[in-house]
């Protein structure tokens, strides 16, 4: 499965669009990470606990999107966009969406 955020895949010819595919995840942090972040907040800078959490969340969202595309029988997902929104204190929603396409074999 090739994923790009441009309208094509270099070197391939797209013959069919299979429609929108998306994956999203809402992830919270366990309280220990939050307490760690509280103490990191004393000096500021990068909050590693949250960085890791969002990276993992985004990977999971992409995994879900891939699964959806595989169910449609797609070869690639093009024009992928992503959004992050804060749902409530201690949780974030990560969403990834794109268009599933089929190649000329």
């Amino acid at each position, binding site marked *: 499965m090739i994923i790009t955020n441009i309208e094509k895949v270099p070197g391939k010819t797209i013959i069919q669009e299979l429609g929108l595919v998306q994956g999203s995840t809402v992830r919270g942090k366990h309280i220990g990470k939050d307490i760690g972040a509280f103490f990191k907040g004393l000096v500021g800078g990068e909050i590693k606990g949250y960085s890791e959490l969002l990276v993992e969340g985004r990977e999971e969202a992409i995994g879900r999107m891939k699964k959806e595309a595989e169910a449609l029988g797609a070869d690639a997902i093009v024009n992928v966009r992503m959004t*992050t929104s804060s749902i409530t204190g*201690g949780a974030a929603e990560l969403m990834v969406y794109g268009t599933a396409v089929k190649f000329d074999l």
Partner: protein
Amino acid sequence: MKKPGDPTQELQQALSYAPDWVNFMFGGETLSDMMFYNVLQVLAVGLAGWSLAAWFERRHLRSLSAREAPLQHISVNTCKNTAHCEPEASTLLIGSVVMAHDYFRTLIITFKSLVGGNIQPYERLVQRGRREALIRLKEEADLLGLDKLVNVRFITSSISGRFLHALEMVAYGTGVRTQR
């Protein structure tokens, strides 16, 4: 068997065993006394954090410059042109970072935002975070042996934890390999 006593009395008894500095931090005869001392302590912790944060910021900026230099061969653009690229090597790449201010600076910003205008600490934080995100994106491309990033986009979003608000900076794009 021990009878459960008055909880406030038990607390006072427990506090009386505490070392002096704990009594200094949380003690005080009257309510106004306690508030006055606590404000001093909060300010002391905040100022210490602030000076440490300033030092960390300078260190981070130095490390950013050092890491940017060896990644200059990777060209970055926001166009979708892939005319001279090899097939079979394109992939989506993501670089992200979550950053926050220290509490003392947050306090300053709160007062500064009453006046309006440029809020320089936030400008610096966002720019620093975006550089870091772009470097991570480039590092990932370098790891995969890709030398061009097309259609790079940035997103910034506010992440609220239980105790502090942080900003997430993300850079994402398609990594490709140009033909040689």
